[in-house]
């Protein structure tokens, strides 16, 4: 899989012809293997995240906070196995956040800005996975664990899960702002400036989530049109954009400290010697 993106810059003595061989070669010798590793982990993580949250556990799109207790118990009963197994996989894979955050932090390190940005972002986003995802997964797991538990307690777990998931705002808000300020100050041209402005939109959606803590129904509840659906659109756009931009950053990476060079045109193949010189 990596070879499809990485074979443009392979060394002249690249031996294998098979896909697998090329993949192994890339794993061993590719000069950007660490970056591609982190990038692929990020892509796979988001795919799994979508599948697990939307299809396996079916906790997204979120159910209504206005439901009465029997409905909520019923909701847990319908998803009993999906929740337990799905969140088991979530627990297994959520460590994949680490390479992802490392890559984002690296993008900031490659900029001409202070190291403060990279390290702040790294710490903030490593922290964010716990209240933003794992606490939710734990509450859901415990909720599904004993269907015969007192319904009121199940309802409490339901609120706990969705509010911790939707209502964790600050780390993402400040994290996006850190990233966008770094992009705006950067002189190395690592990211286009419009991505910084898109980051501002994303940061503002985190502000918009806040009413989820207050309302049990309507557009501002945790499943509401404004607090969930519009935010989801922005978040998905933002994520898709930064995945593509990070990919381009890795392709342009020259391991220097100056401005990142632009990509050569598609028809113009990278001279193998330049990569050889890099190594």
């Amino acid at each position, binding site marked *: 899989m990596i070879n499809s993106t990485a074979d443009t810059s392979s060394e002249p003595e690249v031996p294998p012809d098979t896909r697998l061989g090329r993949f192994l070669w890339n794993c061993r010798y590719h000069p950007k293997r660490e970056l591609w590793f982190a990038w692929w982990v990020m892509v796979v993580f988001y795919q799994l995240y979508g599948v697990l949250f939307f299809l396996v556990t079916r906790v997204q799109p979120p159910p209504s906070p206005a439901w009465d207790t029997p409905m909520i118990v019923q909701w847990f009963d319908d998803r009993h196995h999906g929740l337990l197994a799905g969140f088991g996989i979530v627990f297994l894979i959520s460590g994949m956040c680490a390479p992802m955050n490392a890559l984002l932090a690296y993008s900031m390190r490659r900029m001409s800005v202070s190291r403060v940005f990279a390290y702040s972002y790294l710490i903030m986003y490593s922290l964010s996975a716990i209240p933003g995802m794992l606490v939710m997964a734990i509450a859901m797991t415990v909720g599904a664990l004993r269907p015969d538990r007192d319904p009121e307690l199940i309802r409490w777990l339901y609120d706990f899960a969705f509010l911790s998931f939707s209502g964790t705002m600050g780390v993402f808000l400040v994290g996006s702002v850190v990233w966008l300020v770094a992009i705006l100050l950067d002189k190395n041209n690592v990211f*286009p400036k419009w991505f910084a402005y898109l980051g501002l939109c994303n940061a*503002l959606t985190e502000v918009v989530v806040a009413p989820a803590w207050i309302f049990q129904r309507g557009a501002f509840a945790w499943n509401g049109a*404004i607090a969930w659906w519009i935010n989801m659109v922005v978040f998905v756009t933002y994520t898709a954009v930064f995945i593509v931009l990070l990919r381009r950053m890795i392709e342009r990476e020259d391991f220097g400290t100056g401005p990142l060079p632009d990509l050569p045109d598609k028809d113009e193949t990278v001279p193998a010697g330049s990569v050889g010189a890099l190594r």
Partner: protein
Amino acid sequence: MTHVAGPRPQLAEKPKFVPGQPDMWLFVLFEALLFTGYFSVYLVSRTQNQELYLQSQADLDLRIGVVNTIVLLSSSWAIARCVRAARGGAYRSALTYAFVTIGFGVVFVISKVLEWIHEIGMGNTFTSDEFFQHYFFLTSLHCIHVLIGFIVLGVVIYQLWSSKRRSQELVETGATYWHTVDFLWVLIFAMLYVVR
């Protein structure tokens, strides 16, 4: 950097250019679409419960809204003057206009806060009914944009201050942001105060 598009011979006497970073225009359009989303949600929920919205809307004072709008329009005018002055090299006057813009912005924020206090005094809070949910949501989200606008204007002033900097591109980018704040308010004003 973006003005180097160059004059096109077949067109008018002036060269065509994008004001400010083209990147900022993406923000303008994206953010405006986002607000369109919020307005659509508002309009749909409004039609579902028309009576309640009309009743609550009666508690808003249209005159305050009009004054707010005119204040922001004036600030928009001032920043447009600022851009023209900076382009002409009249940096002192550009600085003055930038400060006038901030002045109008501050007046806007103060009048907004006074209006909120007034509404809360009348018992209309964020949680009191659906109309006021939307009212407080839209106005405060817009107010956050104004506050970010102050930071942007700060950058503009910083650029204009010293002869070492003076990037016309950044001044224009900042102005574009501020106009966005203005036209978003124009839309919000129509949505909250006028629509029946």
